[in-house]
């Protein structure tokens, strides 16, 4: 699959010859430098943007059909909440769009917010929440209608270290219970290794897949693993793939 843009009369190849199979329920990290087309890849997978050649198939259907049956939940780098809606009303936004019974919406939002420890903040506006809290709201917003695939575009990169680690654990917890397929874009090697089953290492100009590395760490992953030799060895393998 490839993606090309035409910019000022010049055709820029953003992604070239990318081929990737993802198993249902798998956690895949896309890792690479800025400009390697990681975010573009997410947009192509979710049919927000067409590929210039090649095809995307999602759970037995085209990307467009998958989008129409609401398969994709998006989480962005900054929470991208609506400032005029409370936390709860932000979570409810997708429920108002997809086919979700109106009577059950409020209960669903409350339950989701409770799951990430945000229940008492459900009537707070985004400008009253910290960065980590906002991102929690954004994550449960993407889960609200129970899509099968989560597309996450550097969701934790703007957070401080402690909050980031906490949210990573929360995400793994959600993932193991809900059996979602997750496509997680990051430029942080440790994050990719800690979270993913497979790390897809990409290069820039044009975006290509350099290597796909299976992460040989047991589940469930816990914070202490970060200090183990196995973890460091995995990180080294990924870093070498990134640099060569």
């Amino acid at each position, binding site marked *: 699959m490839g993606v090309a843009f035409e910019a000022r009369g010049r055709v820029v190849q953003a992604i070239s010859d990318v081929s990737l199979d993802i198993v249902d329920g798998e956690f895949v990290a896309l890792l690479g430098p800025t400009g390697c087309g990681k975010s573009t890849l997410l947009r192509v997978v979710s049919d*927000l943007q067409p590929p210039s050649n090649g095809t995307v198939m999602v759970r037995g259907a085209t990307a467009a059909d998958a989008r129409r049956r609401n398969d994709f939940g998006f989480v962005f780098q*900054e929470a991208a909440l609506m*400032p005029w809606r409370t936390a709860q009303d932000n979570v409810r936004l*997708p429920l108002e*769009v997809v086919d979700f019974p109106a009577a059950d919406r409020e209960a669903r939002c409350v339950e989701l917010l409770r799951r990430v420890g945000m229940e008492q903040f459900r009537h707070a506006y985004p400008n009253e929440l910290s960065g980590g809290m906002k991102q929690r709201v954004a994550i449960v917003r993407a889960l609200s209608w129970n899509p099968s695939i989560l597309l996450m575009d550097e969701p934790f990169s703007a957070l401080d270290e402690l909050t980031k680690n906490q949210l990573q654990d929360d995400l793994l917890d959600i993932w193991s219970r809900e059996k979602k397929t997750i496509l997680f874009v990051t430029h942080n090697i440790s994050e990719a290794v800690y979270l993913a089953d497979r790390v897809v290492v990409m290069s820039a100009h044009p975006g290509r897949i350099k290597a796909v590395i299976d992460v040989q760490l047991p589940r469930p992953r816990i914070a202490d693993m970060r200090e183990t030799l196995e973890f460091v060895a995995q990180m080294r393998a990924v870093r070498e793939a990134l640099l060569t």
Partner: protein
Amino acid sequence: MSDAARKNQVTTRDVRLAFARFGPPALILAALLLAWELAVRMLGIAAWLLPAPSAIAARFFRTQDLGYHTGLTLLEAGLGFAISAVLGIALAAGIANSRFLERGIFPYVIVSNAVPIIAIVPLLNIWLGFGIATKVVIAAIITFFPIVTNTTRGLKAADERILDLMHSINATRRQIFFKVQLPSALPFVFAGFKIAASLALVGAVVGEFYGADRGLGYLVITAATQLRTDLLFVAIFVLAAIGILTFTLFGWLERRALRGADAVDRRR
């Protein structure tokens, strides 16, 4: 004492805060009026040239049909504003969502602003006569530009990621407009409304300058031609008061509509 009662109680702190805010401008105003009054009396300035504030106040209370003229001008400005707001927001919605309309109509919206409204008034008099309709149309025309441009800008300022999110769950254009674009445009819409509100008043008054027989604009023109300067000042002060009130009203509406939202968080 219950909490609610305590909340409603005016404390000395509230009084101090209110004085800190309104005290200085009130003092300056009182000093200016006093200086004006004294200057007129001591220098013996003719009333047709500059009436004393006390004379203007007296004229204010003696002008019986002032309420009628004010009400009429407010009606013209308000109707014109309302028509413009409805049409302007609808057009802005079209421009923000259609390349064709943006390229095809937006240039003319901008050109329309370049035509001096005063030059069009006689034409409107020929077409619509000298009644209320002409003034309403003038107020609508003059307010159209700020409402359309501000609303268009606001609709286009919607967060790209939230738009992506809406597209990724297959939202309809209608859902995207009412749930994302319009609410995120509100601060811009209100900015446009604030400008438009004062312009609507200008439009109504200018319309009344030309061959009207009622309204504050008519009052201004007749008072001036008859050298009834005290009445002229009364009309000017009423217009100023309306301007201040509408500005305050829209500021209040804006704050109400934007609870929770602030300028900093909008871009995050």
